[in-house]
């Protein structure tokens, strides 16, 4: 009751000013002239109405388009006048006049119908709105308009963009507008000269948008003719049966151009034969004999002679037709001069892109190499220096990574947790390494094959223990926020900070290794013990202790490598075994017992793998396969690795 009264009151008080709408304002007249199209509104027919509004030059047109797009335009079902409105509640509207934006009043929505443009129409409206937005006082709106143009450029945008250029004040937006204007000129420029000039202005530009603008100009259509026409817009001549034009496609082209009889597919031929089976025979041929393609061809030919089916081309005819015609590409994207300019610009760009890609690939390879180096550096100590084959080395890497994961469970701050995890991982794997050396390896120093087997046993056990504790799913080891993102050099060359961090870490490890081995007493003693344990022992060095510490040091470095690798890849119980073969390969290829060899080995393996991946980007498995094969072959030629030890060190 109360609500009814309120509505009544609203009607009484507000219906009166509704008549004050300016029905003769220019914008309203324009809308009326397009009224049918607007109210009917389908994506196919709406174009002229939107164009009329957009090109009217009326200041209110932008408001109309805006409101229309937002589904706030309503039409008075009685008078046919358009207004825009806000819904006050379910059945009351607050309506405004388009002409001056003045409030007309609040009315019940019975007499009004809302215009509901579908998404296609809203898209068209959005395109039309761009020209208004380009000169909008708000820079954010102008940026949005430029975004819209980049997403879907249209011919009309070019003029709008040019018109807005002199008024632009923001230098950043101005630069963007100018670039966009040149891009649009390539596509829609009025004269060829203008387009060529725009194309040439992009010489060597690496932007993806430039290539996207140039590529459509090079669009071709494959055509066939008896003889090659002398037109200027002819591209290359295609040979049927080549990679660019298969024999079937070439003939289909002739058929489509009515230059040859159609062929029949095996399917259709079979269906045609089946349709004409009579008394177990097709055209007098026993069905049972139709068990080869030749027999079926003959039966079909017989049917064609009877006139039951249409004749088709035989293979000989196909060959003859193909031989009699020449196939070529015709440029359809642009006039020939523009095409040639675009081709030249694109070639220059592609060359530059290739160089940059090469650079990017090298960065990738370098980062892969540093990962391999990290994984292998511990081995370079235990295997390279001590000669112990530790197949559980990969599991030390895994232990380090899991240590990092556990630390992150307790310390939520990623930066701090990594700083804690690195020494802790070293400590954990150092302890594990020392324990393993004391319990197992010490007894097997003169039996390398059995060291390999025993450490395999440990590796299997450690992997399974990790699986039992942490489960089989991958655990995350999250890098600190400041390592997110990547260093972008240009559109093609970029490298993530985490890879840079790993690279730096690898260099640090190299320095640490060199320092420990060459500048500390431990290193001196290690070198002495590995060269001649008995002589070292008589000099007062305890070889047992040195061996234990060296093995622990190598294992500890593997633990830190585990943290780094865990940041880069997921932590699983199998992550160690993923790296173990490659790590051994790295050490063996580089040359056992020499850290520079390991560095070279890792670099070679990393570059090799990326290089192979570049040839076959979709398939990293193949890259690994070929890399291993390559290494097997490499060892044939340099069995002692890239840097072979000479003299006494080699005999030790």
């Amino acid at each position, binding site marked *: 009751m109360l609500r009814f009264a309120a509505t009544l009151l609203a009607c009484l008080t507000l219906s009166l000013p509704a008549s004050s709408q300016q029905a003769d304002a220019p914008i309203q007249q324009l809308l009326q002239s397009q009224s049918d199209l607007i109210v009917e509104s389908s994506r196919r027919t709406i174009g002229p109405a939107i164009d009329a509004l957009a090109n009217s030059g009326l200041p209110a047109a932008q408001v109309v388009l805006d409101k229309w797009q937002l589904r706030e335009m309503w039409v008075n079902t009685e008078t046919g006048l358009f207004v825009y409105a806000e819904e006050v509640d379910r059945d009351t509207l607050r309506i405004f006049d388009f002409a001056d934006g003045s409030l007309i009043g609040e009315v019940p929505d019975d007499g009004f119908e809302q215009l509901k443009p579908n998404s296609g129409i809203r898209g068209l409206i959005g395109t039309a709105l761009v020209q208004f937005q380009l000169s909008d006082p708000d820079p954010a709106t102008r940026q949005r308009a430029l975004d819209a143009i980049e997403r879907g450029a249209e011919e009309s945008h070019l003029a709008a963009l040019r018109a807005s250029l002199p008024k632009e004040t923001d230098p950043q937006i101005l630069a963007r507008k100018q670039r966009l204007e040149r891009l649009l000129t390539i596509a829609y420029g009025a004269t060829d000269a203008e387009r060529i000039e725009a194309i040439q202005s992009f010489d060597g530009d690496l932007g993806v948008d430039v290539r996207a603008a140039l590529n459509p100009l090079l669009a071709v259509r494959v055509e066939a003719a008896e003889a090659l026409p002398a037109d200027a817009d002819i591209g290359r001549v295609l040979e049927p049966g080549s990679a660019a034009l298969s024999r079937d496609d070439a003939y289909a082209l002739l058929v489509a151009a009515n230059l040859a009889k159609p062929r029949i597919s*095996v399917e259709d031929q*079979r269906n045609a*034969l*089946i349709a004409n*089976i009579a008394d177990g025979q097709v055209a007098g041929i026993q*069905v*049972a*004999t*139709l*068990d*080869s*393609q030749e027999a*079926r061809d003959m039966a079909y030919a017989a049917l064609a002679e009877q006139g039951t089916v249409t004749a088709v081309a035989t293979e000989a005819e196909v060959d003859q037709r193909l031989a009699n015609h020449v196939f070529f590409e015709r440029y359809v994207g642009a006039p020939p001069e523009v095409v040639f300019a675009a081709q030249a610009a694109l070639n220059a760009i592609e060359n530059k892109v290739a160089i940059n890609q090469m650079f990017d690939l090298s960065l990738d390879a370098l980062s892969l190499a540093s990962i391999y180096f990290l994984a292998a550096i511990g081995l370079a100590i235990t295997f390279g220096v001590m000669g112990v*084959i530790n197949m559980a080395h990969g599991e030390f890497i895994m232990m380090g990574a899991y240590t990092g994961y556990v630390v992150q469970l307790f310390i939520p701050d990623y930066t701090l947790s990594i700083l804690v995890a690195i020494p802790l991982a070293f400590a954990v794997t150092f302890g594990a390494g020392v324990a393993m050396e004391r319990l*197992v390896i010490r*007894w*097997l120093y003169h039996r*390398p*094959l*059995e*060291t*390999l*087997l*025993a450490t*395999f*046993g*440990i*590796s*299997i*056990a*450690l*992997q*399974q*223990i990790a*699986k*039992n504790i942490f489960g089989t799913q991958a655990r995350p080891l999250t890098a600190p926020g400041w390592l997110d993102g990547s260093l972008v050099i240009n559109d093609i060359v970029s490298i993530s900070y985490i890879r840079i961090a790993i690279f730096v870490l690898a260099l640090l490890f190299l320095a640490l290794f060199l320092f420990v081995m060459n500048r500390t007493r431990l290193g001196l003693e290690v070198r002495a013990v590995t060269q001649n344990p008995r002589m070292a022992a008589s000099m007062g060095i305890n070889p047992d202790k040195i061996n234990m510490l060296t093995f622990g040091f190598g294992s500890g470095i593997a633990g830190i490598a585990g943290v780094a690798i865990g940041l880069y890849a997921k932590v699983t119980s199998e992550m160690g*075994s993923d790296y173990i*073969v490659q790590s*051994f*390969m790295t050490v*063996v290829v580089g040359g056992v017992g020499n850290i520079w060899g390991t560095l070279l080995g890792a670099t070679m393996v990393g570059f090799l793998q990326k290089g192979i991946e570049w040839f076959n980007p979709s*398939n990293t*498995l*193949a890259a*690994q*396969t070929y890399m*291993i*094969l390559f*290494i*097997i*072959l490499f*060892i*044939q*030629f340099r*069995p002692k690795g890239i840097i072979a030890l000479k003299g006494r060190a080699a005999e030790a």
Partner: protein
Amino acid sequence: MTDAALPRRQPFALRFPSVMIFLAILALFTVGVTILSEGFGIGVISTSFIKTLGKTLCLCLVALAMDLVWGYCGILSLGHMAFFGLGGYAIGMWLMYARTEIIVLESLAAAELPPTPEEVSNGIATQIFGVVGSSEFPPIWAFAHSLPLQLAAVVIVPGLLALVFGWLAFRSRVTGVYLSILTQAMTLALSLHLFQNDSGLRGNNGLSGLQNLPGLDDVPQATVSLWFFWASALALGLGYVLCAWIVSGKFGSVIRAIRDDEARVRFLGYPVEAFKLVIFTLTAVIAGIAGALYYPQAGIINPAEIAPIASIYLAVWVAIGGRGRLYGAVIGAAFVSLVSTWFTGGQAPDINLGVYTISWVDWWTVLLGLSFVAVTLYAPKGIGGLIDLITERKSPNRHGASLGPDQGSLREQEAEK
């Protein structure tokens, strides 16, 4: 010493009584299992367990090969399970092709027109390679239609790979652990290659349905499993005799000498590389044959079976069984693989420690790894070493060695008279 003074060679069987004992045990076992089986006997042993036993015999055969190459020749190959898998793939290709062909021919027989060869071939290819999104036969399937050719491939493919790889490796004098790592790399490369979908062997789907023999759908699996069991037992018996014969003669002495001191054998004028190559290739062929018998019983083969870890387990079996003695390899493979089946099959009772329950499905691998370390450290002779406890109680057979320090002391021939 004149020829007459040399001891007369005894028959092979008497010189190596262990061969006879082994063959007798194997025969008894085979007959026993047959009697207890479902297919031909009283049905105490289920068909699936017959398959497990048959598979175990195949594993014993490949362990035998491993023992020959590692225990006798000193080459710790981590690639023999790859050869095993290649043998399985070779026979699997025929099994899968022939079976799919029958299915396709049946489905096409209902069509109005008799099928053309192209239609049949396309149908089979679509059936087999549909899972990897292809419908064409890769070139390596060119011989898959022919059983004799694929059987030849069982021998030739692993043999050829071993020959080429071995030639490259031995020629450049890669020995010891380096060779092990190199063979492991080869195995890894092979399994990574097979994991690719475009390797032509159905990527990680592998080959499946191998337990069904083409054209023998009427024969129940109980019978088929026994056939394979017999074939495996026969292969193991023959393989054992072959290996025993190889290691018994001069050839065997040379390869043992290579194991113990390769450089010295080389200086004595033996072509060490050739000996190693022969053993490496021969054992690869044996492994291939074992694989060809194994996978029809397993029913499925995929690249994971070729991964390096499988070859490592093979070395584990041989080490636990006792390397350097043929029966050791067989005992090790049989014991460890059957115990593994028992533990990982969930049949072993869990141990409740109050705070933590040890579930053997999870902890068996840990136990295996650690016991492997223990065997390496404390019992290099493995389980086979237990047999020495018996044989050492008997007086040693000196094989014509001098019985005393004096030149004129009695020689063996006289002593044995």
